[in-house]
């Protein structure tokens, strides 16, 4: 439970972070809240030789209403999302989901940017961002670029982020008054989801799935069924279509397929999405 030796650099700005990443290449890793990276390092499943700490870039910690969207700095801690009045007004789903992550200690350290950049299919916030149709901003040596959440997650713990890029902002369309639901199915309150479902109704409906494949997923078959006028339970019957969920201690793939159908139905009913 002691990581292998590494160098530590603290970045004072995004540009400096990008510079350090460029300098050290594949050996370097950004450190935000450390709550995904450090456990891997302690188990020696990851052994970066340089850590570039962006955890103190306080200008990347914000939640701001901005026209039709809410902009969230990548370094915003889960706890700050959980209690954000801007989110409660415009995107309550995201505040709620952030409040379901781990335990208070985790929520006071972990950041939304770290959660998305890590790309863990078992994480809650990626599914919420998929359901909400979020857009991410990344900064690299070539400058800034944007990407849709739906295009961001590319493989197991793999995202569109280049090794020298920093995720800086998450923009979420406002969903004022739209129904929503987050169904997190786990055994203990502080556990990761065995299966989770984030759903938003309203003008831009969307459903994101937790732990149903190698990446955070959108329930496209359900969304299509809903668009075609299916009822909640009819649409939910498609929740596992085409999915290849993982097997672990808590669930077989078959059980996950069953769970996701139940949870999607409940989410749609709660969100009033059909």
């Amino acid at each position, binding site marked *: *439970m*002691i990581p292998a030796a590494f160098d530590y650099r603290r970045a004072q700005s995004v540009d400096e972070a990008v510079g350090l990443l460029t300098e050290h290449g594949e050996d370097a890793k950004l450190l935000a809240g450390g709550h995904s990276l450090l456990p891997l390092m302690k188990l020696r499943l990851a052994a970066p030789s340089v850590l570039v700490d962006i955890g103190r870039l306080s200008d990347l910690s914000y939640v701001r209403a901005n026209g039709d969207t809410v902009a969230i700095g990548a370094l915003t801690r889960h706890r700050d999302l959980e209690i954000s009045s801007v989110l409660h007004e415009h995107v309550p789903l995201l505040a709620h989901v952030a409040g379901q992550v781990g335990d208070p200690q985790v929520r006071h350290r972990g950041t939304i940017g770290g959660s998305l950049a890590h790309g863990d299919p078992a994480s809650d916030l990626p599914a919420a961002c998929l359901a909400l149709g979020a857009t991410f901003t990344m900064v690299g040596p070539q400058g800034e670029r944007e990407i849709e959440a739906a295009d961001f997650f590319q493989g197991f713990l793999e995202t569109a982020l280049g090794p020298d890029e920093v995720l800086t902002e998450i923009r979420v369309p406002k969903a004022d008054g739209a129904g929503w639901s987050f169904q997190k199915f786990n*055994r*203990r309150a502080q556990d990761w989801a*065995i299966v989770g479902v984030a759903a938003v109704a309203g003008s831009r409906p969307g459903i994101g799935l937790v732990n149903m494949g190698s990446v955070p997923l959108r329930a496209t078959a359900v969304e299509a069924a809903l668009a075609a006028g299916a009822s909640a339970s009819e649409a939910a019957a498609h929740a596992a279509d085409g999915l290849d969920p993982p097997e672990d*201690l*808590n*669930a077989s793939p078959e*059980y996950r397929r069953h769970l996701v159908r*139940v949870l999607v139905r409940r989410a749609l009913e709660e969100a009033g999405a059909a």
Partner: protein
Amino acid sequence: MSILGNRVLRREDPKFLTTGGVYGDDLPGVGALWATFVRSTMAHARIVALDAGGALDRPGVVAVYTAADLDLPPVPAGMPGIPESMFRPVLAQDVVRFVGEPVAVVLTEERYQGEDAAEAVFVDYEPLPTVVDPETALAGGTLLFPDHGTNVATDFREPLDEHFFDDCEVVVRQRVINQRVAPCPLEVRSGMASWGADGRLTQWLSTQAPHSAKDALAGLFALAADQVRVIAPDVGGGFGAKIGPYPEDLVVAWSARAQGRPVRWTETRSESMLGLVHGRGQIQDIAIGGNRDGQVLAYRIDVLQDAGAYPAVGAYLPMLTKLMAPGTYAIPKVSASACAVVTNTTSIGAYRGAGRPEATAAIERAMDLFAAEIGADPAQVRRQNLVSKDFFPYTTATGFTYDIGDYMGALDLALEASDYAGLRAEQARRRAEGGPCQMGIGVSTYVEITNGLPDAGEFAVVEVLPTGTARVYTGSSPHGQGHVTAWSMLASEQLGIPMEDIEVVANDTDLVASGGGTMGSRSLQAGGLAVHEASMTLVDEARQLAAELLEANPDDVVLDKIEGRFHVAGTPAVARSWAEVASAAEERGGLRVEHKSSPSGPTFPFGAHVAVVEVDTETGQARLRRLVAVDDAGTILNPLLAEGQRHGGLAQGVAQALLEEVRYDADGNPVTSNLADYAMISATELPSFELVSMATPTPVNALGAKGIGESGTIGSTPAVQSAVVDAVAHLGVRHIDMPASPQRVWQVLQDSASHKGSE
């Protein structure tokens, strides 16, 4: 007015809540080397090559030792009858038998250096066939100890008479798994060893029993008993898993001697999940028979105990399971059979309840199955078969004599407090409505044995100093229970010296001459009794001396416990204080009484629990909604301490029913070796417990006290398991093994539905 029986706040807590405890890892350890263990990554393999060369060049590395370096004999199993060929080598010798078994130790100047260096120790393993499942072990195709010729470590098997159930109208059979669980004390193993220039060993251990550790260490290093000192600093829980010293502790002591420097270690949680003993681990085949009117006539249990790789206490647990087989019931015929086998897994040891929870879980499951079979209410069937309170002391069919009990009384209290009738009505309503969330009610009654070790006594010294303050030395080994509070209450009650003026000394073999330690719920009835009796004797001796000082007849002298002074009855104005008497006693060797208690036998606490569970029949998720517990531990010294023991016990019992299970894959790789994968219970999974008081004093000791440390665990597990089954009983389910995880419950519901569909 007596202080006994009051909710006296724990004297221990201000320290723990402010400056914090001093645990093994907090010891200053100036100049100590750190020990890091290289552990087997294979469940069963021959060590073909072991090369420490790579590690020796790493920064900070002082030495690497393997079995070849150690001149230490294997560790005796600590239990009679276990064959020597199954004794555990201190470091693995030629063969490794479970993942996590220490193979080598690396000594470094700094702790972190050890982890890097341990990775550089090269071990070449040649895999051997692995045995994880006890039934496979019993079949004996692969032997862990070929010299022994069998995997059976202990054998208490008894054949079953083929006519055993002949007079029964109904017989129900079931295989029940009492799964392997991990004790998970919050403090993992930790300690330090230091040898003096005089060849004396001082060892700090996170242990429940310093004195037996001292004996073990003295034996191992062939030292006179007074050449070893064991100190238990603050200990963050043990639950039975910290009774003996571990091989790692012995290696630490050996290394310290070899290096001429103190050596310390603290394991990680992941190591602890593999290295600390596990608990439970039984396959039980139960059969219960009786009449359709509800009378149980015959009960049989066959236990196959998983002992883990190196048999120790765990190999003896089925003995207790056998003896406690009939539980609270007056069953005319009881037959119990058991044996323990070795497997390529972590050894099984004592864990909160140790052998009794397994017995209770089995008989309670049997009662439920029997009730279901004859279509009767499970509470009613229990009531019909409980041992009546008029029959105590009661000798069971398996040969134990229960001291005292009122099982019907306990059951009635639990049913009343839970509004059992109301619960059944609500259940019927919810079944009729047919919603996805169904309710289950589980009832258990239990009796267990506490202070059941052959040596039931405990050592204490009580002394009063010339300052008028007192000191209590105890052979009990506090590690969270509140002994300081309890023992100062007992002494204060007799001496009339305020609790805050009483110091309690424990956990240091130089300061306390002997001790049995804290395990098996024995402290109050053994160690507390010793303090109580020693205090009374001390008062008598002090009265003699006070009489001399007062120039009075000793028979006329009384102790005013409010003022803490001795005077002649009727003339309180002329008195001698404790300080005066103790000062006068100084030239005669002081006011000091050394005593070992000798309770006349073990005690048998009992109780009844009612659990209410909700099961989401769509997902299989079971949630505990209520837990009503009647736990009769006899006369209660301090309700606050007793409730603390009950709360912890209940939580761990619920955990076994719903959440916790140590699992291995088919190759013997542990898959639950951290607290993310091993679902240790937390407050969020528990309702507020509803504790009901009941106190039937035992005649076995002067305090009327029975053990309370394990009761909660023993009663709650079957109540909660039963409630889960009950929630889905109307869907055709009779049994669900523990833990009742969502996937398992869902699977059972699937099977039951498809079974029905195919009928």
